[in-house]
């Protein structure tokens, strides 16, 4: 049954200083549209004051009722209907505060009146300073002041409790909140000992786990230490067993026996090796011998061949020369004849000339005599000059022709060449130190260098050193001797000692020639031709004249005149004969020279061949003097046989040495020794190890490791059991708490259901398809749309306000069903709503107004003017 406000009268209440009465409120929707500052909110405040604020309170709220700055008594009178009966409440605050309630049971005043009001409206005594909407029961929720609806708030406890009865009746179950509240905190606190809020193990669980882990760790450590000790024991056993084996091995004599045998073998092997070395040396020596014999044989063969070759060459050279010998003799014959003829011709000519000359002298004698005086004078002068000239001429006469010089030089070069060839082939030896008793080719040796050109024997005591220069040297020596002979012959011919002397003489002679010309000029000057005396120009004529003069009588001039002409012819004939003889002689000489020139190389060749033959023969002779030559072949055969035999011996020795290899035996002995050594070392090591292990066991054994391990193991087992127990307890508590929580949630859902159902009816219209979610406190918590949930706080202001109004409406409906006197008063609602939503909301409110009284206080004329019963504050005043 709706609560219906019928009449409100105010005086001295805030802006209503003057008495004001509002009536004409109908059962359904009443709309009070007034501009701001008209007193709409004051009206709602006045209603709350009348119903819920104790008359005799002087709290801040009550004091605020008096108009500002006035000490008056605010007074309110409200006529209303509740539960189908008419009521009236009259309240006066502050000054002479009073309250009076008139209802179907008469009137009541003071506390009684307040109690009646609270009982009627389902409110609680409000002890707050500023007014507590929660204490105002259903109307606290449904009378919504300005801006109060902007948040979706949960209903207060009174409302919840009021509603609960409905809900319990409706869902057929009970919340059992009190018993739950007793049990739940205890379970939670027990739970907290095992789990964190986020469901992770904590406190006792972690303690048990830590304890378990520590125990396990301790157990495994103890077990490990024990295992180490046990390992020590088994190591010790093993070491002792090994030591026993080693001792047995060391005591075993078979190795020593084997070693002795091996040492014996080693001696055999060593002698075999020695024998092998001897055999090798022997065989090497024999090989050398065979080689020496073979060498000798080959040298002999070579020498023999050389002898036969040189003999052939010699005979060939002699053959080729023998053809030339006859020719040479003929040429010499001819040359000799020609020379003799020449000499005769010369003699003849000389005689002719002499005769001629004598005749001529006698002819001229007379003339000369005349002029002999003059001649005598000039002669005296001439004599002096001629003396000088003669000296000079003597000198000039010594000149040797250039061709001769060249020939001399040529010969000298030939000598030098030959000497160089000899020198090159010669052996140079040097004696030094005490050379007493040392003879060279039988002569006592002297200190210093010496060149050897032929085989030379040097003796010292019975020893003889034979030095044989090369074979070619003898030929060179012969060449040298020939060349020297040639050179000396030429030098002797010109009366000089050497070619150099010849050159020097020529120099002096050339100077003399120059002087001669000067002297000749002077002589010529003093010896002009004297036709009378038949003195021709020249000194000789003069001298001849003078000489004749001296010989004959100067005064003689009366001698017979000689036949000069005949004599001259004879002389000419003699000259011609001489010329012929000279020609013949020249040709003969030329021919001889030619033959001789052809003969010379052949002679050299023949000499060389002779020398070679001699050398070869000498060499062969030398070789053949060796004693072994006689039986060389036998010796060689013997040597080869011996070598073969030695080779066989060598192979035998090698076989023997291989069969008894020293290295192998030594290695075997070494192995045996090493084995013993290693065994001893191992034994020492083992004893060390055993001592170490014994020490360790002694140190560790006394610590009771086995006991500790057993204790630790049992403690670990106990820790496992404890952990299992704790885990079980934790699981139990977790399950219990979860179950309690889910029971609570389930119950809450069951209880919230009817609220949600009612709210959904309205909300569906506003937000089609939306599903409201209510919290345990019955407050609207979320809206689910299209499967997505949204917290109410996240919705738009407008939507929040609309939802707040709609949930209030749902509660109002429920309270109404329960017979609670409710009405809906909204002060300035839906300020954020758009037109569409506003229309929808007004429609819902209009519909709600068919079930309960709804009073809208608003300043928005256009939005609400078309609705319901419009009441004007100003008009009613």
């Amino acid at each position: 049954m709706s609560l219906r406000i019928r009449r409100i009268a105010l005086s001295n209440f805030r802006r209503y200083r003057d008495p004001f009465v509002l009536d004409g409120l109908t059962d359904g929707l009443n709309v009070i549209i007034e501009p701001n500052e008209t007193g709409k909110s004051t009206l709602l405040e006045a209603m709350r004051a009348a119903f819920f604020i104790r008359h005799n309170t002087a709290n801040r709220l009550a004091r605020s009722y008096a108009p500002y700055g006035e000490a008056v008594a605010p007074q309110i009178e409200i006529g209303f209907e509740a539960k189908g009966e008419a009521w009236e409440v009259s309240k006066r605050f502050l000054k002479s505060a009073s309250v009076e309630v008139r209802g179907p049971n008469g009137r009541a005043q003071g506390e009684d009146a307040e109690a009646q009001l609270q009982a009627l409206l389902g409110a609680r005594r409000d002890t707050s300073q500023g007014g507590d909407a929660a204490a105002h029961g259903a109307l606290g929720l449904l009378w919504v002041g300005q801006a109060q609806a902007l948040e979706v708030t949960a209903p207060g406890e009174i409302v919840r409790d009021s509603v609960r009865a409905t809900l319990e009746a409706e869902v057929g179950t009970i919340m059992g909140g009190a018993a739950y509240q007793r049990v739940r905190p205890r379970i939670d606190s027990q739970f907290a000992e095992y789990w964190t809020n986020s469901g992770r193990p904590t406190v006792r669980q972690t303690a048990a786990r830590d304890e378990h882990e520590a125990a396990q760790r301790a157990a495994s450590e103890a077990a490990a230490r024990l295992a180490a000790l046990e390992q020590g024991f088994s190591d010790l056993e093993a070491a002792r067993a090994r030591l026993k084996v080693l001792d047995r091995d060391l005591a075993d004599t078979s190795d020593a026996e084997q070693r002795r045998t091996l040492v014996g073998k080693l001696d055999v092997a060593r002698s075999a090796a020695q024998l092998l070395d001897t055999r090798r040396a022997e065989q090497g020596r024999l090989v050398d011998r065979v080689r020496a014999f073979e060498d000798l044989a080959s040298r002999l063969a070579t020498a023999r061949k050389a002898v036969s070759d040189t003999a052939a060459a010699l005979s060939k050279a002699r053959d080729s020369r023998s053809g030339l010998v006859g020719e040479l003799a003929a040429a010499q014959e001819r040359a000799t004849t020609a020379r003799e003829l020449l000499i005769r011709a010369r003699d003849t000519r000389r005689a002719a000339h002499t005769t001629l000359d004598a005749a001529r002298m006698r002819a001229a004698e007379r003339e000369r005599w005349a002029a002999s005086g003059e001649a005598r004078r000039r002669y005296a002068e001439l004599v002096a000059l001629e003396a000088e000239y003669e000296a000079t001429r003597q000198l000039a006469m010594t000149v040797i022709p250039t061709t001769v010089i060249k020939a001399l030089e040529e010969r000298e070069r030939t000598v030098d060449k030959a000497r160089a060839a000899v020198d090159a082939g010669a052996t140079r030896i040097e004696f030094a130190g005490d050379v007493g008793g040392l003879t060279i080719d039988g002569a006592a040796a002297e200190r210093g260098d010496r060149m050897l050109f032929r085989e030379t024997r040097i003796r010292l005591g019975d020893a003889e050193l034979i030095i044989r220069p090369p074979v070619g040297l003898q030929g060179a020596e012969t060449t040298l001797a020939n060349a020297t002979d040639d050179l000396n012959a030429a030098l002797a011919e010109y009366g000089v000692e050497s070619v150099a002397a010849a050159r020097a003489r020529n120099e002096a002679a050339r100077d003399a020639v120059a002087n001669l010309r000067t002297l000749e000029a002077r002589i010529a000057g003093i010896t002009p031709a004297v036709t009378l005396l038949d003195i021709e120009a020249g000194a000789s004529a003069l001298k001849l004249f003078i000489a004749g003069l001296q010989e004959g009588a100067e005064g003689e001039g009366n001698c017979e005149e000689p036949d000069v002409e005949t004599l001259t012819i004879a002389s000419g004939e003699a000259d011609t004969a001489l010329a012929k003889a000279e020609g013949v002689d020249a040709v003969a000489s030329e021919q001889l020279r030619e033959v001789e020139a052809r003969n010379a190389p052949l002679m050299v060749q023949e000499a060389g061949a002779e020398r070679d033959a001699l050398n070869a023969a000498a060499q062969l002779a030398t070789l053949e003097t060796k004693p072994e030559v006689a039986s060389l072949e036998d010796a060689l055969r013997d040597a080869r046989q011996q070598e073969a035999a030695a080779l066989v011996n060598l192979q035998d020795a090698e076989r023997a040495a291989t069969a008894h290899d020293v290295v192998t035996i030594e290695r075997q002995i070494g192995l045996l020794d090493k084995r013993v050594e290693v065994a001893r070392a191992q034994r020492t090591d083992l004893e060390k190890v055993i001592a170490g292990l014994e020490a360790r066991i002694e140190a560790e054994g006394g610590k009771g490791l086995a006991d500790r391990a057993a204790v630790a193991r049992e403690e670990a087992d106990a820790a496992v059991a404890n952990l299992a127990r704790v885990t079980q307890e934790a699981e139990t508590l977790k399950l219990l708490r979860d179950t309690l929580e889910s029971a609570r949630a389930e119950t809450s859902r069951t209880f919230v259901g009817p609220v949600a159902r009612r709210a959904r009816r309205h909300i569906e219209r506003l937000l089609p398809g939306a599903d409201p979610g209510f919290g345990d406190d019955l407050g609207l918590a979320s809206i689910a749309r299209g499967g997505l949930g949204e917290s109410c706080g996240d919705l738009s202001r407008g939507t929040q306000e609309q939802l707040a109004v709609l949930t209030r409406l749902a509660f109002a409906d429920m309270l109404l069903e329960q017979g609670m006197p409710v009405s809906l008063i909204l002060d300035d609602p839906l300020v954020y709503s758009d037109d569409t939503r506003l229309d929808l909301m007004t429609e819902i409110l209009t519909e709600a107004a068919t079930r309960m009284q709804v009073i809208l206080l608003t300043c928005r004329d256009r939005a609400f003017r078309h609705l319901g019963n419009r009441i004007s504050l100003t008009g009613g005043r």
Partner: protein
Amino acid sequence: MLRLIHTADWQLGKPYGRFDSDLRAALSEARFDAIDAIGKAAAEHEVRHVLVAGDVFDTEGPEDRVIVQAVSRMQRYACTWWLLPGNHDFARNSGLWDRVRAKGAANIRILAEPVPCELEPGQWLLPAPLTHRHNLDDSTALFDTMETPGARLRIGLAHGSIRDFSSRGEAQNQITPDRAQRSNLDYLALGDWHGSLRVDARTWYSGTPETDRFQRDEPGYALLVTLEAGAEPSVSPIRTGRFQWLMRSWTVADAEGFAAECDRLLAQVEPSATLLQLSLSGIVSLSDRIAILARLDNDLRHRLRHLAVTADDLVGRPSEQDLADLRVEGMIGTAAGKLMSMIEAGGSDGAIARRALERLFVEHQRGQDAA
């Protein structure tokens, strides 16, 4: 005539690591105390020789303290202690027994070699020490080759289990059961089996002097053996053990039945020397189960020396009343319903769900009590 004490399996230094430290100390100490008990018994019965048939120590590598404790306690008594290495404390070079020997106790004889020793003139002890943790050969086979000149009594001392001829394959540390007869022994003192056991008239296991595990209810014993040539040995057990290790499986129908069992048990035992391993089974109401567990935790656990409970088979099924009580509580009822359906689905989740439901029930009742 020869009188001796036969004991074995002292297992000195046994760690008991799964128990809390107090109990651990007590149990360890009790094993040493057993030596005193045996020593006193020897003195009382004028026994000059105590034969320990192996496993004197729990491990081959005990703490020094364990050795010193053992040696010093044995030294207190006049008798000679013949110690045989067993599989737990087998003999080896540089091992445990060298350490014991190094303590230089005159009345302790270590039988690390299988060489016969004369206890008294003509009374020979034939030891079969173990040299490995696991021995495939019968260590007592050597008895046949041991020379015991002028023997009037031949006493074998060995450690291992009696060979089971029906089993195939190679078992470890086994001893042929007719060894006494085969080797012409007057008595064969065996160790390894922790309870006293007569194999035949001349072959006995002494058992451990101080029980060390939940296996049998009996406390530990040593055997007082009297031997006479040609006669069967006379063997009588002497209690040496302090603690009793009890195993109980109770099937309970409700809290009252459980309480009765508890009372019965407590009447029979010395609680402070009792260790109990209890298995509970049965189906009870959830509130009964909670009451039973509360009794165990709040009462029995504190009376006994030690209590280990396995209550997984004690199914606490919520009664109709239980469930109805919960159901009126709205959300808690819903949660209980969810858990119930998980329990009915079974599996590992079911087991957790069962515990969760029990916890919910406990907390709910506690909440109601508080309210």
